[in-house]
C-alpha cells in the first residue's frame, strides 16, 4: 500500500491511503476522495466504467505529484485512481498530500485533482437504464 502513484481495478482504500502518508515533520495532511455519483442531471447512473491508457496515465499522475511538490511546499503526494467497472458510491480517486503548512497542503491537493481531471488519460463511461455515454466527450 506504499505505492504513491497507482491505478487499480480493485476497490480503493482511502483509509490505507491516509495511513500511507503521515509524517511527524508535517503540520498538515489534506486528502480528497472522489466518489462516483448515483445520478447525472437527475438520471440514475446504474454503474460506471473507467478506461485508462495506463502507461501514460501513470506518467501524467507522477508529473502532477512532482509539480505539486515543486509548486507548493509539499513533502509527499499520493494519487490512486480506479479503473474498470465501478459501483455507484465507490471511490474513483484518492489524493493525499502532506505539507509543513496547511495552506500549501490544501492548495496542492486541489491542484492535483483539478489537473488530474484535465490531463490524465482516463475516460469515464456512465451506464443508464436507456443507454451509456462517455462523459465530457462532446461540447
Amino acid at each position, binding site marked *: 500500500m506504499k505505492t504513491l502513484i497507482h491505478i487499480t481495478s480493485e476497490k480503493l482504500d482511502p483509509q490505507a491511503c491516509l495511513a500511507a502518508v503521515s509524517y511527524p515533520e508535517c503540520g498538515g495532511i489534506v486528502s480528497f476522495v*472522489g466518489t462516483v455519483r448515483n445520478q447525472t442531471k437527475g438520471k440514475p447512473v446504474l454503474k460506471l466504467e*473507467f*478506461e*485508462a*491508457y495506463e*502507461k*501514460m*496515465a501513470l*506518467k501524467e499522475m507522477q508529473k502532477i505529484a512532482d509539480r505539486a511538490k515543486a509548486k507548493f511546499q509539499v513533502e509527499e503526494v499520493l494519487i490512486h*485512481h480506479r479503473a474498470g467497472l465501478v459501483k455507484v458510491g465507490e471511490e*474513483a*480517486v484518492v489524493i493525499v498530500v502532506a505539507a509543513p503548512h496547511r495552506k500549501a497542503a490544501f492548495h496542492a491537493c486541489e491542484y492535483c*485533482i483539478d489537473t*488530474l*481531471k*484535465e*490531463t*490524465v*488519460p*482516463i*475516460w*469515464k*463511461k456512465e451506464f443508464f437504464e436507456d443507454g451509456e455515454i*462517455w*462523459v*465530457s*466527450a*462532446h*461540447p
Partner: protein
Amino acid sequence: MKIEVIAFGIAKDILNGNQVTLEMDEQSSVADVRQALVDLYPAFQGLASLQLAVNADYVNDDYLIKENDEVVLIPPVSGG
C-alpha cells in the same frame, strides 16, 4: 509510411475498433494525422477536443511522427 493509431474511450467507438493504420507521407505532423483521421471519420469533429499522444506524452501539433512512434488518440478525458 504506415502509422498505427491506438484509440481509447469514445475514439474507439468512432473507429469501431481500438486501432487504425494510416498510410501517411514521411514528415507528417501530428496535425496531419489528426486531419487524416477527421477526413476518414467525420464524427471526430463532434468531440470537445481531440489530442494525440506520442510515446505516452502529449505533443504539439507540429511534432513530426516517426514510423515506430506509439501514437494514441486522446478524446476529452474524464477521470477523477
